[in-house]
């Protein structure tokens, strides 16, 4: 009987512990537990006809904000009232006093939780409101809300200067009704049975633990006698634990804290609108001199928002910054004060590196004078209108961020004593642990002890801080999501596999280890291979695998490609559209010499594939469909300048221009009035960066080179290559509308309507083609808008767009590597 009673109590204890450890299994809505908010809020705003209304708020332990977004068009001020929330029920009474020139109007109150965002996604931080009363009248008995699902109440007809008394109880949301009692009871029964049968073992464990704690406490007085390695290792591990716990007791996470600590830069950005990718529309002078080149990123003209980043050397002392901007045209410049730009390891976002700023003045007007701690994620921005030839004077002071107790969340919310006590306890616990180890393991050898400590530290550290990254730009993919414990028995018992995927993507030190591996690999290899590409260290060229364009040369496949192109042409003819097929040759075929010596480029296979491609072209021509394939022209042009980027599969501006000329030769046969641009119309510039849709390059952050591999330590032995860029002199006249996977161009000097459908090779093509047509619509096929296998189902996906736009010319422009996918063009499945 005794054992049963003990088992019941034990089962209760174990089930409570398990419920606390894995609450999501035992709650109906686990979000209520996962994202708990310490703050609740009520948004109060005017509604209806009012002017210059304001609301005053009175109440205890409240924080009142008047954010910009809550103002309506007539400058009425609303308020956001924040108040602390805990597990215990708290009662608030808030007196709202609308005043000013308010007429008889309404107040809208939104009861909601904190605006909690993780990775820029709003999370449901629930708060429970109870007994909501307005002026003594009950409004609602119980409402569980979060930011996106507020409880809204409209208080009608309030008169000027009349007080509104709002009272409510508030607490954190989890209550008995949220618990899945079936699970809890089941667990309790199971745990009781477990305790019943394993009573002896558990008793032994509990006794030994209690004994341990007792010995540990008794050792506190004696610890000074241990003048050996245990103290040293305990101190080191305590410090290590403190460092690991930085994310817990600072408002920054670990990496941000470290980066801020060692930051030597401050930065600001100037954002403006410009429809060219040429020179900046203002002259810039700065004291001190910026560390970087103050020119905008190499963004194509199709993206009108440009940005200049300026980074300055920051010291511990305040430094004065003086900027003079002389604008060459009317417009607006947005000034953003921030911390330095340092990318995180995944290349997706920046570290939140803090910098202190103060005394910001623009043309003598003080924008703020007090010390502001700013970072990229929390920057100060101000849009300033400028006129032609006007000079803008910006003055400010900045310094490296000085950490104070305000930065430490733990010290702020608790106090220093807790911190010291915690550390001391940790130290004694570690000391006791090592004492126990020493007793159990005998007298150790020093170097072996160090080996063991280092080895086990290395094993423990990666699990200490699993990253919460969602995506990896460097890998160009979403990171695996953590599987919920409740899914253990779901989805084909693959929990372990899914957790392994999650752990693989998130364990601490992953990227540092990958970097180390890459450094070694790159140093040791002649050729760097990844599944889809090879990179030749000596020459700096990389090529896509497979080197040939189409792998499937069976007659049925070739016939299917031709049939689809003929059907597309038929559709175009029915709608009075002229179709041109444009095939961009593969980089590997243009520069095959760089492959053949080094890497077994199979000439026979190349000839076979070329013949297959030729057969397709011949068949298409037979049906009077113009098919442009500028292979020879590009081979010739490659003698003058690079027609493809060395480390990407896209062609350069020069390559795209050669292709454009060949295409226009065909187009002008049918549309002789079509203007053709020449290079005289273009401004030339040189840059080592690669212009394409990702701003991808190997030499500066962000490193988005997803095509290639995981490394920023490329051991480049060849000198840096500079590419020639062409920007049209009349870029300002071009109007561009950028959609998700479409771009619409309107150019007054062009003629006819062109629709360009194709793959990423067209991004550089767009430097030329839109200047020939009055309207150009570009549809990018492979932009992730549909599944990969459906991308080329053009008629199914874009028929409506084609008919709506009614182009005179439809250009189907695809890379040679995608030619075999043309068999899907008319597929309706």
């Amino acid at each position, binding site marked *: 009987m005794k054992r049963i009673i003990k088992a019941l109590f034990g089962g209760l204890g174990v089930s409570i512990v398990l419920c606390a450890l894995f609450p999501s299994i035992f709650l109906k809505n686990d979000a209520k537990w996962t994202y708990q908010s310490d703050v609740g809020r009520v948004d109060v705003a005017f509604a209806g006809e009012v002017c210059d209304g304001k609301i005053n708020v009175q109440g205890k332990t409240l924080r009142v904000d008047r954010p910009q977004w809550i103002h309506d068009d007539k400058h009425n001020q609303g308020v956001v009232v924040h108040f602390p929330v805990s597990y215990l029920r708290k009662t608030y009474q808030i007196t709202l006093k609308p005043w000013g020139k308010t007429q008889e109007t309404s107040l809208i109150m939104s009861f909601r939780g904190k605006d909690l965002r993780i990775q820029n996604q709003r999370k449901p931080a629930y708060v429970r409101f109870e007994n909501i009363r307005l002026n003594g009248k009950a409004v609602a008995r119980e409402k569980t809300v979060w930011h996106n699902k507020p409880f809204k109440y409209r208080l009608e007809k309030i008169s000027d200067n009349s007080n509104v008394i709002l009272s409510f109880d508030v607490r954190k949301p989890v209550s008995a009704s949220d618990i899945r009692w079936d699970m809890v009871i089941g667990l309790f029964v199971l745990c009781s049975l477990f305790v019943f049968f394993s009573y002896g073992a558990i008793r032994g464990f509990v006794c030994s633990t209690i004994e341990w704690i007792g010995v540990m406490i008794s050792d506190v007085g004696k610890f000074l006698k241990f003048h050996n390695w245990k103290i040293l290792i305990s101190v080191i591990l305590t410090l290590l634990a403190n460092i690991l716990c930085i994310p817990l007791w600072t408002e920054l996470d670990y990496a941000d804290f470290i980066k801020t600590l060692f930051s030597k830069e401050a930065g600001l950005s100037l954002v403006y609108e410009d429809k060219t990718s040429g020179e900046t529309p203002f002259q810039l002078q700065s004291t001190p001199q910026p560390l970087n080149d103050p020119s905008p990123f190499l963004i194509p003209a199709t993206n009108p928002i440009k940005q200049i980043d300026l980074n300055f050397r920051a010291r511990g002392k305040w430094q004065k910054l003086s900027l003079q901007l002389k604008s060459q045209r009317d417009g607006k410049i947005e000034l953003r004060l921030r911390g330095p730009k340092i990318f995180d390891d995944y290349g997706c976002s920046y570290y939140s590196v803090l910098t202190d700023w103060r005394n910001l003045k623009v043309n003598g007007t003080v924008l703020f004078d007090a010390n502001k701690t700013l970072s990229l994620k929390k920057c100060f921005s101000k849009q300033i209108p400028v006129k032609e030839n006007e000079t803008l004077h910006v003055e400010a002071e900045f310094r490296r961020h000085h950490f104070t107790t305000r930065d430490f969340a733990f010290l702020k919310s608790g106090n220093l004593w807790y911190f010291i006590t915690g550390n001391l306890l940790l130290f004694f616990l570690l000391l006791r642990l090592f004492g126990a180890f020493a007793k159990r*393991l005998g007298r150790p050898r020093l170097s072996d002890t160090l080996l063991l400590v280092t080895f086990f530290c290395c094993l423990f550290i990666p699990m200490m801080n699993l990253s919460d990254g969602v995506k990896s730009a460097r890998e160009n993919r979403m990171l695996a999501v953590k599987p919920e414990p409740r899914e253990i028995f779901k989805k084909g018992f693959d929990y372990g596999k899914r957790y392994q995927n999650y752990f693989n993507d998130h364990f601490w030190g992953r990227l540092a280890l990958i970097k180390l591996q890459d450094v070694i690999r790159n140093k040791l290899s002649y050729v760097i291979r990844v599944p889809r590409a090879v990179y030749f260290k000596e020459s700096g060229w990389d090529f896509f695998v497979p080197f040939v364009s189409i792998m499937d040369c069976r007659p049925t496949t070739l016939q299917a490609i031709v049939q689809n192109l003929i059907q597309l042409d038929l559709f175009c003819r029915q709608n009075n559209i002229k179709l041109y097929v444009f095939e961009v040759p593969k980089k590997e075929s243009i520069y095959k010499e760089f492959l053949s010596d080094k890497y077994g480029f199979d000439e026979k296979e190349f000839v076979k594939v070329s013949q297959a491609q030729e057969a397709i072209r011949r068949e298409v021509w037979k049906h009077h469909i113009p098919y442009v394939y500028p292979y020879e022209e590009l081979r010739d042009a490659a003698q003058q300048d690079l027609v493809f980027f060395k480390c990407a599969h896209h062609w350069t501006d020069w390559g795209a221009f050669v292709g454009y000329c060949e295409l226009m030769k065909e187009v002008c046969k049918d549309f002789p009035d079509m203007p053709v641009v020449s290079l005289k119309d273009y401004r030339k510039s040189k840059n080592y960066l690669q212009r394409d849709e990702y701003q991808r390059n190997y030499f500066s952050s962000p490193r988005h080179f997803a095509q290639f591999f995981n490394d920023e330590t490329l051991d480049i032995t060849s000198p840096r290559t500079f590419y020639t860029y062409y920007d049209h002199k009349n870029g300002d006249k071009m109007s561009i509308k950028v959609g998700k996977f479409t771009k619409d161009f309107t150019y007054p000097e062009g003629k006819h309507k062109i629709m360009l459908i194709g793959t990423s090779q067209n991004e550089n093509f767009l430097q030329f083609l839109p200047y020939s047509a009055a309207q150009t619509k570009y549809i990018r096929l492979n932009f992730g808008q549909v599944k990969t296998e459906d991308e080329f189902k053009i008629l199914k996906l874009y028929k409506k767009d084609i008919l709506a736009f009614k182009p005179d010319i439809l250009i189907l422009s695809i890379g040679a590597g995608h030619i075999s996918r043309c068999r899907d063009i008319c597929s309706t499945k």
Partner: protein
Amino acid sequence: MLFSSTTFLFLFLPIVCALYLLVRKELKDYVLLLASIFFYAWGEPRYVAVMLLTVILNYVGAILISKYKCKKVLLLLTILGDLSFLFYFKYFNFFVENINALFDGHIDFIKVIMPIGISFYTFQAISYVVDVYREEVEPQRNIYKLALYITLFPQLVAGPIVKYHDVADQIENRTVDFEKVAYGVKRFIVGLAKKVLLANTLGAVADKVFTQPIDQLDCMTTWLGAICYTFQIYYDFSGYSDMAIGLGSIFGFKFLENFNYPYISRSITEYWRRWHISLGSWFRDYMFMPIMFLPLARNTAISRSYRWVMKKVGSKVANAIMTFIALLIVWFSTGFWHGAGWTFIVWGLYNGFFIFIETLTGWNRDRKSIGGKALQHFYAMLVIILGLVIFRSDTMQYAWHYLLTMFGIERGETMYHLIYYVDRIEIIALTVGIVCSAPLCSKMLEVEGRSQLRIAAVNLWLLALFILSAASIAASTYNPFIYFRF
């Protein structure tokens, strides 16, 4: 869960080690048992039941064998039960495939994945009941302890096959001391480095070669593939064994060595004394020896037949015939144990054939001259490499053409230059692999009588190896999605 996965290395291992080393002695077995079941369930929870059924079957079987007189029947029933799981999960589809091919039948395959480690733990279970039957050990009355023996995670996935009589005492009573933990950690690091740095690097080369169509391989490439595979399989398997032995040492066990520099062998007989020792000794103890002793039994059909043959042809020839039959059965079983495929069976018989020839001719005797030794070594390596080509090939047809290409009898046209297969890093791995396959650093981990400085240097080197291995494992998690956006 693999030893060279991040979840094992950075999650499972540290937690289990910490728990194991910290809990009281009475609880250590339970911690280890739970950890082993969790380890197994992590990858394929469905098959935990199969493993636990094996435990129960052998627990009950052994107790009944020790209690009742019809020991033989009970032993046979227990072994049959053990083998039935193995047959169902590993060999059923192989038999169906061959029956269908032979009789043009249409028997459906069963959709089943082979539970990880089933070959290893089944053999361990058989070793237990046979030891009880032979009265070499007492039957284990505590089912948890028997479960611990069968499911012990360090040797669960890839051996070594620990025989019950070797660890029976350790299961009951073992100690964990600093020396054992330190040695275990060092051995584990060595094994990890073997697996990750050498086997995986050489394996990539071998995979590239063996996945090419045979008409696209030339003589040089086939030799390269075969040599790389020879070293890959050694470092892969011996690396796992090292890790298992190391983990065993951390937990207080002392497992027997599984490899003893097999590539320095000068005959196939010697090779099998050095290669996968636990499997070889298992077959010797539980299959070869019982077959060889069959003629000595009283009044059985086999003993009568043996005596008749002996009268007709003499005892020497009769012995040779008996040895031949025993070797045939053992090596057929050895090949079949490695995998349900004809390539494995042929590989097993191929090894048995050379061992039989060596036994008959006395080729496996030691030579004194250097030239003789070199010739013996050359012969042994050649036979090993050619045998492993059969082992690695998917079909016998592929293996045959591959062997013909190796000797220049058939010629394919290679698509790629040699640099496609081996870069500097692979050449380094192969060189290190060849050097380390000889016992040059065999005493690296010994600490007795060594200076502190030397031990510290070895430890530093081991730490560097561990970090390099961890980097390599981490890099394997790098999985860029090419070209497309998120």
